[in-house]
């Protein structure tokens, strides 16, 4: 079943919140490294929670291209469609 991008984005904001210790306002163009200042361990935990939420594998090869929250939402919709 195809997921709506809006639904993914809304849920993504919720999943990021526990790691958003600096309470940075979240938007589509929020960047993980530059705005949220996530380190690689935090990214790994966040990716794991997304993988469990949508029951997908997010390949390591994709990570370098995912800089913003919106890009991650796109990737999840695509991965879910392929699964």
């Amino acid at each position, binding site marked *: 079943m195809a997921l709506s991008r809006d639904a993914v984005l809304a849920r993504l904001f919720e999943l990021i919140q526990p790691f958003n210790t600096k309470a940075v306002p979240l938007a589509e163009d929020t960047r993980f490294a530059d705005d949220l200042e996530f*380190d*690689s*361990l935090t990214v*790994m935990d966040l990716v*794991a929670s997304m*993988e*469990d939420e949508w*029951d*997908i*594998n*997010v*390949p*390591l*090869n994709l990570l370098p291209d995912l800089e913003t929250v919106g890009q991650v939402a796109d990737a999840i919709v695509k991965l879910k469609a*392929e*699964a």
Partner: protein
Amino acid sequence: MSGTPPVDLLAKFDAIRTEYAFLLSTGLSDPFGVVMERVLSPTRAIIRGRETILVGTYNYMGMTFDPDVIAAGKAAMDAFGAGSTGSRVLNGTFATHVAVEQALKDFYGTKSAIVFSTGYQANLGMVSTLAGKDDVILLDADSHASIYDGCKLGNAEVVRFRHNDAADLEKRLRRVPAGKGKLVILEGVYSMLGDVAPLRDLVGAAKAHGAMVLVDEAHAMGFFGPHGRGVYEEQGLEEEVDFVVGTFSKSVGTVGGFAVSNHPHFEILRLVCNPYRFTASLPPVVAASAEASIRKLMAARDKRERLWAASRKLHAGLKAAGFTMATETAESAIIAVLMPSQEACVVMWSALLDQGIYCNLARPPATPMGVYLLRCSLSSEHGLDDVDEIVRRFVQARAASQALAA
């Protein structure tokens, strides 16, 4: 074009360069610049003019000075010359290469063995060649850099699972679309903390999902399992594991890497694997030394027992002296002490060198995030009295570094 300002390609390393320069400016010894002026034995070297106990060499079976190993190397040097000067595929194989591959087949009881120029290249070659564009690699998050780099060299999709977590691996295997080739990559002993993998559970999950399995046994050869083949043998998985990768740089005591397998078509890799075919083969002196060493390791029961006794004693001694150990018990011959911070780690490492102890300072990215280690590894040639001396000097070094901090 004139007028285009040049970009210094080394500028991206300025932060680490500054950090390193600061470290050296404190007057501490350079943890990445130790020179062994002479090597006296598998357990002793002269560093800064002083006899130092080596507690960080991976020379697990003490083979570097074995007289038979040295004699075999010298004879091959005389008979075959100093080097092979090329790739086996293009420039030819020497009899010494065939002989060391036969020794590996005898040691592991496998149909095939392929020798690479290092263990790093063995992983680069195996990982990048086995898993292609439509395949998925599932690797442990704490995998060695050579495995990660093998993933980068290849075209497969790469999925990471939590360290030594069979349930997490299982979940990820389940998510791989049907029909894709799957390669699960594991290590018998993880080289930073020295912890042993629950291979039975991990391999069980892999096989239940039709994946092929590669296990890197670099830090287990010679002293795990009835024949010393590794953790996979100790846990009874010889039928299940498809490929075993290893190195000559640790227990074998020289340099080189290899993969062994019973797969009926394993040999085809020689023709398609770039890190095998586009680099020079091992020099004959190395191949012949490795062959002699591997054959001796088949019967090295006493060495194994000495290594285990020394490793258990070092773990217990450091723990009793109040150090925080990376594993609850001595799981392997790597005995790692956890340090609270990078500074504490460097100060203690430097104090140990002053005491005549050489161990490894390990920090990210070699270790997991935030983990700073004083990593010790023993050899079968360390006596139990050496272990007492090592613990004593650890305690003295701690006192010296605490005095420095106060």
